[in-house]
């Protein structure tokens, strides 16, 4: 599994389309809003891209409150089982929402918290993680092709 993260409007999805030569029109590309895709929905696809992981975190909080965290880890585990099958490749795209002012609304505070924890869980499971900065990838984990790692980049 490959996790692609970064701030809003940083070109994350665009980078995935270019890196994998995989269009957003493809049936394996899911733009997440309030429905959590099941691995049955991935049937027939070799590459599956789930864009907007933060939206399902929010959806689950509105539905289930605190217990959303438990559900998220079950969902991730089922996605990982799909990813481990031969020829399957899962790409998750998530927007970092954790660097701003503490939100006024309790549900938005919980959203930020669970989103941060869930992203950490995803990174632990991922083979490769890239942080996208206005279209430029920084490799946080694993091996990439043709770009510098964060460490090499900081001079």
């Amino acid at each position, binding site marked *: 599994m490959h996790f692609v993260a970064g701030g809003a409007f940083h070109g994350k999805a665009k980078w995935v389309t270019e890196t994998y030569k995989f269009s957003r029109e493809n049936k394996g590309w899911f733009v997440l809003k309030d429905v959590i895709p099941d691995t049955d929905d991935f049937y027939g696809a070799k590459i599956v891209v789930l864009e907007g992981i933060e939206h399902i975190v929010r959806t689950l909080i509105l539905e289930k409150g605190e217990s959303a965290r438990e559900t998220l880890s079950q969902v991730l585990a089922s996605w990982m089982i799909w990813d481990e099958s031969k020829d399957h490749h899962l790409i998750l795209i998530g927007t970092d929402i954790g660097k701003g002012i503490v*939100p006024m609304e309790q549900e938005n505070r919980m959203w930020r918290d669970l989103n941060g924890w869930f992203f950490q869980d995803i990174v632990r499971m991922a083979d490769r993680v890239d942080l996208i900065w206005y279209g430029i990838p920084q490799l946080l984990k694993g091996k990439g092709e043709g770009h510098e790692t964060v460490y090499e*980049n900081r001079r």
Partner: protein
Amino acid sequence: MLIFVTGGVRSGKSTYAEQVVSRLASDDRTAYYVATSNHIDHEMRMRIQKHQNDRERDPLNWITFEQPRNLHELAVSFQPGDVVLIDCLTNLLNNELFDGWEMNANWWISPLFRKKMYEKILKGINELMKTGINLVIVSNEVFFDPISVNEDGTYYFIELLGKLHQAIVKKADIACLVENGTPMFMKRSSRHADRTAIR
């Protein structure tokens, strides 16, 4: 050459950008400062005054242009090799996107208007670059709050700023994120490395 400098509020991005300008400026020590804010309130005036005072202590001879909108109009003012600092892109976008707000114009609601403003700003940058100047653009990091679910003015502002950052970084020779006064180079062509390195 195009250099993009971004960072959070009070990250030291303007100070760093001015150091870059000072390194690029030729022997006559003249540099151009493009101020983009519509200085409307007292607080903004104080911030501008602080930046002006800082620049007065600078050995560089700064020439200031007040250009809150219509960046392309400045293209006639520069010669090849001039060093120009735009501070900052966020004010410019704000003034273009919310132009006419005092009269409740609300043009920003139209997708076509937003697209036009995005293209207008990029075209302005392109026209300045065509004059052969060295251009340093300062902008601001505003992308890490939970994005508003409602597509209001703030949402569109952040969306356009993100898209502008992507387009400018793509064009830039050097792009850096300033954290606490220290530039982190995200993009740098080795050809220019020695001229901009701070240490």
